[in-house]
């Protein structure tokens, strides 16, 4: 299920300049991909276009076979009237209860799911939010800084587990962490400022998996390419 954007141009209503002008990109198939770039270049805007929140732009996004796109961001909150576990149980399909427990364990949330969302730390809140999205039916999940405030070790554990649990799904991970996107993502879409052409450059990432040995040389090269492209 490739996702391909062609000749995309967009300007926010009443904004002076365009966010995108003739932007082209392609994401090949399922896997863990990244959208990388400095703040303000339009990563969230592009994510919202992919999820259908922003419409009325010029150009096309072809996503044959992608039925459901979900977009999640790191400032989301769970309602405060029940604890995190009760909320998960409410929104998880009955068949997905085992997966729910698995995710709670992988995300290191066993001790926290009995608490209200507002009592959790920022990192725990982001993990709880991501779990509920992973319990939904989706083809493409866009994770906009979804693992912000989570320590490096847990982040790595989560990404690797997600790759194992959802091999047939597509993820678009938005992050400012070069090393992370270079190491874990198969394709890194580097979004650049409007003045540069092309506005988006695709770089091959290492797509590191749990069982595989990581190649430091390959990682370094991918990081350099990303930094150079940005």
């Amino acid at each position, binding site marked *: 299920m490739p996702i391909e954007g062609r000749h995309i141009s967009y300007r926010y209503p009443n904004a002076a300049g365009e966010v995108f002008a003739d932007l082209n990109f392609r994401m090949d198939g399922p896997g863990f991909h990244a959208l990388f770039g400095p703040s303000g270049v339009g990563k969230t805007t592009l994510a919202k276009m992919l*999820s259908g929140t922003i419409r009325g732009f010029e150009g096309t996004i072809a996503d044959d076979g992608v039925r459901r796109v*979900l*977009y*999640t*961001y790191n*400032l*989301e*909150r*769970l*309602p*405060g*009237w*029940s604890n995190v576990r009760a909320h998960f149980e409410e*929104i998880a399909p009955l068949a997905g209860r085992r997966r729910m427990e698995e995710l709670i364990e992988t995300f290191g949330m066993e001790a926290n799911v009995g608490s*209200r969302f507002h009592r959790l730390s920022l990192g725990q809140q982001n993990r709880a*939010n991501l779990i*509920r*999205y992973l319990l*939904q039916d989706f083809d493409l999940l866009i994770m906009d800084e979804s693992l912000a405030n989570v320590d490096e070790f847990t982040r790595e554990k989560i990404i690797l587990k997600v790759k194992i649990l959802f091999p047939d799904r597509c993820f678009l991970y938005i992050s400012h962490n070069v090393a992370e996107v270079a190491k874990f993502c198969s394709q890194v879409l580097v979004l650049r400022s409007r003045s540069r052409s092309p506005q988006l450059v695709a770089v091959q990432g290492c797509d590191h998996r749990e069982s595989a040995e990581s190649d430091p040389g390959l990682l370094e090269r991918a990081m350099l390419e990303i930094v150079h492209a940005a």
Partner: protein
Amino acid sequence: MLHRRIYQFLIIYAIGLGLLLALKYGLNLSDYVIPSPDEIVRTCRTYGGPYLLAVLNTLAVAVLGHILSICLATVVAVIGRLTAWIGSFIRTAAYNIQAYPIVAVAPIIFILLGDGLQSRLLIAAMICYFPLLLSFIGVFSEPIREIEHFYESTGRMTWRLQVKIRAFENIQKLTTVIVGSATMAMVGTIVAEFIAATAGIGYSIRIALYQSDLAKILVALFLIGVGTSLYLVSLEWAGNALQKRLKSL
């Protein structure tokens, strides 16, 4: 221990009464104009009981009118949040109607409905309804994006859930508005009774005014103040208890 609302009222009442008596003795006014402390105490002993019943009668109507306007404001605000233009229309209409003195419409209500319970109830509800409506529309029309996004994007959002989220997130604001409008309900009821009703403390004040009996009016004001303070205290207590319960769950 007296709640701060009650002792605040007692302090203000005592200051007001003290100023009146200072005026009386400073300008050497007769007991007919401003009654002496003895006269006020005597009036309190004679009319305290009947006036207390009248205040309770007024309070009951005010509470009913208040509940009525809360329910109505909730329903209209929930409908008003459906589309931007309905919400905008209701908000504009409420602003305009609120600017019009409801008390001026009271005689029409008495002519149409008579001087019974319905008229008092309707005027009490109308006076506190529009401020409640404006606040409720504001609360129920404002999306809580960081919570609602998940339900919207997964297709789980229902109108009940949306109302629940917005009410829960704004519970403190809603409580404050409800407590604030309680005074208006009480004022509305007293004004309605004063204009044309045949029961309640407003009616008693009207009779006292015809008799030029300031002592009776002072006793009535004291009981109104205590009654209103108690109602506000109860509402604040209920609001705090609700908020505490929601937070501790």
